[in-house]
């Protein structure tokens, strides 16, 4: 098992290095620079600015210097917000994005697995078709459409919920969490339905029923555990996806999270911030993938013995 984990960790290094390199050079190819404004900056001032941020060095030297700083965990100063470091900006945005991701995940788990289970109990009836059609719509509908629709309905028409913000007014966390979680809820619904259908046809379920157990016990106690396995292994990458994919929701609802910083950094050509967030998020994704692989290996006895015999 340890060999498996350390092997995966070693594999992650070139992946992250490639991400850094590609991003580093790509942001510099984009037209415009971090110090451009409608008021033209005189060459003397531009040179002074570039010197303060090491942009006067040759590109390769900038790259190696950046890698050096990165090795010490320093993402460098933000170009757009003088006086603030990228570490500080990520530190400010991450807790908000993580909280949003967590609520979205909880919503997705609750709504997704419940509708999946309900659908699996009477396959190919209305009880199956309705939640699965909703799930299909949920998968297909992008957040930039669902968000404004929910705002229009609950925020403006019914005036039940705040239209934006995060932690300012009670209830303002609901719409963003639902918007972000609904796509995932749909996936989970389909996964749990498939898992349930497979498990429900197993012999041990027939045994449970033959014992005369009530249906809720058969489903809740015996079937559910097996059925949710594929869902659990899906959660790691899904959470990483929520963290890195929340920028649309954060922009719609004006949430001060990492995603919004990321989008603004791109518009501002804030090189260090773009790089910092990209590196940070890709590391996170690699990490969550690793965790879910380990989890899958650990939950699946066949894989577990395979690794055990190798080590």
């Amino acid at each position, binding site marked *: 098992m340890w060999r498996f984990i350390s092997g995966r960790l070693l594999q992650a290094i070139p992946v992250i290095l490639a991400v850094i390199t590609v991003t580093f050079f790509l942001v510099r190819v984009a037209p415009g620079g971090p110090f451009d404004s409608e008021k033209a900056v005189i060459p003397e001032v531009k040179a002074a600015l570039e010197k303060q941020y090491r942009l006067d060095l040759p590109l390769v030297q900038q790259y190696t210097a950046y890698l050096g700083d990165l090795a010490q965990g320093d993402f460098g100063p933000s170009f757009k917000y003088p006086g603030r470091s990228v570490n500080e900006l990520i530190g400010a945005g991450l807790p908000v994005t993580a909280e949003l991701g967590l609520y979205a995940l909880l919503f997705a788990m609750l709504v997704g697995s419940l509708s999946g289970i309900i659908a699996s109990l009477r396959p190919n009836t209305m009880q199956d078709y309705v939640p699965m059609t909703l799930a299909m719509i949920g998968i297909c509908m992008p957040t930039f459409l669902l968000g404004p629709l929910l705002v229009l309905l609950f925020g403006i028409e019914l005036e039940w919920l705040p239209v934006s913000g995060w932690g300012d007014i009670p209830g303002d966390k609901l719409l963003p969490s639902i918007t972000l979680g609904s796509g995932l809820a749909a996936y989970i619904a389909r996964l749990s339905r498939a898992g349930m259908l497979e498990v429900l046809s197993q012999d041990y379920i027939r045994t449970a029923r033959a014992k005369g157990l009530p249906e809720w016990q058969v489903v809740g106690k015996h079937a559910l555990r097996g059925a949710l396995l594929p869902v659990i292994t899906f959660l790691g990458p899904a959470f990483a996806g929520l963290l890195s994919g929340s920028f649309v929701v954060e922009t719609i609802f004006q949430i001060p999270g990492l995603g919004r910083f990321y989008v603004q950094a791109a518009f*501002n050509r804030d090189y260090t911030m773009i790089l910092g967030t990209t590196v940070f998020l890709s590391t996170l994704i690699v990490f969550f993938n690793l965790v879910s692989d380990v989890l899958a290996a650990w939950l699946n006895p066949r894989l577990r013995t395979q690794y055990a015999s190798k080590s």
Partner: protein
Amino acid sequence: MNLRTSLVLIALTGLIGCSAGESNVERGNREGILYFGNGTEPQSADPHVLSGSPEVNLAVALFEPILGRNPYTLAIEPGVAERWEFNEDRTAVTFYLNPEARWSNGDPLTAEDFRWSWQRALNPAMGNTMANSLFVIRGAEDYHYGRNPDPDALGLHVIDQHTLRVELSYPNPFALIRLTYIYTAPVHRATIEAHGKSTDRYSAWTKPGNFVGNGPFTIDDWKMQRFVIVRKNPYYWDRDNVALNGIVFRPIESSNTEEKMFRSGQLHATTTIANTKIPIYRQQPEPALTEGPFMGSYYYMFNTRRPPLDSLPVRRALALAVDRETLANTVLAGTAIPSANYVPVGMPDYTHPAVLGFNPEEARRLLAGAGYPNGEGFPDITLIYNTLENHRSVAVAIQQMWKTHLNLDIEIANQEWMVYLDTLENRDYDIARMGWTGDIYPGVFLDRLVTTGTSNRLGFANAEYDDIILNQIRATGDAEVQMALYAEAERVLLDEMPLLPIYTYTNKFLAQPSMEGMPSNLSSMINWKYIKLDPDAPAWKWTSLDP
């Protein structure tokens, strides 16, 4: 069923949420705290680093320049200096600082603080993009451009602890306006040096806890993308005239969100309001909308180095075919003042030169004379603008006017802001949108268009124009003569027509009736000292109007 349960849950939580407690506005009125929608997250609070309105709005609460300004009349009034006097030939000003002036940590504020701060602001290593506000000081331009590296060569003389003599670069009656700008505010040397080099942009000195300023307020808390809270500075010399106890600056990028927050009593005032909302706010029985002209000019730039725009008759024909009145009244919903002048309409004490108005017949005649009768054979050209709905609407309308009146098919295209700036920098365009905002002084608009002007992206070069701006205006200390010379410079500019003026900007923002002291003014400036809240007033209520 589960879906229904969750919907009911959502609804219940929402209802509880919405009815909980009093609004920000009501609480703010009672406690003397103003909730202000401030556009984007301020980049910095360092007056020698920042530029842009959200930063300025915050900084004017935290710092005070040597001179202040009245938001109603725009007259210059005491700032840190309690009085000042010009010498006889108006080449120098002596400032007498208020002996009561202090920093927010209680340290006395002295003439030396100004000398040091202005040297810092002009230091080329600082990378200060707004340093030109201080170019009224003799030697400032040379020092900033690195032509003379000695900061002591600046025309700044500390006479005693509270007296500062400033030599001017030329006898400029408008010099004092520049010294009211926040970019010229003093900064606290010991605090800055405690957190790094004096010219470091990447410094922690403006963070809550470290910050020391000299304005009516000081930083209390700053959560990125959430708020900046400032509270009254107990050491401020004019504290008895500061009515507010604090201000909460909220960064809200979307003007629609800002408007919704205003409507629900979360904000006392907004920075702006979307054009589409203005007609409905104009009809509200209790007015919340403030409108008024301000010194900003919206125009199109012609690339005079590319055919067919290198031809003056072509440029004039395009200008004559634009019906600005219709544009302002329909597309812009009366939120702009149509103007064929480059210097904004309403510039005090300034007489605009006569300009070409809307004259489609003359336009067709000029176009035919240039070799394109009825638009035939006119090369393909493109009008570009940075991505924004308002710019698109204007571009579409003008494209249509050129088609109707001149039979020209001109393409329009948008570009993301940074790409757009890059395109302008490389002069890789035919016609491009631009705007310029300033103050009640035509020099802000005209000085920059001299051949060597750094912000002259037009490629406009005219010896007569340069002579007026660089020699004739600087040779006179008489304000009236200067105004007449500026009008002459504008005439020269518009005769050459390297740009097509379209309209003068207006201020438009929402403000609670419970607040006073934030009028619309020509310089679009706020002086927080003037703002008062009525402690008993309720929040403004939206009235639904039948269509």
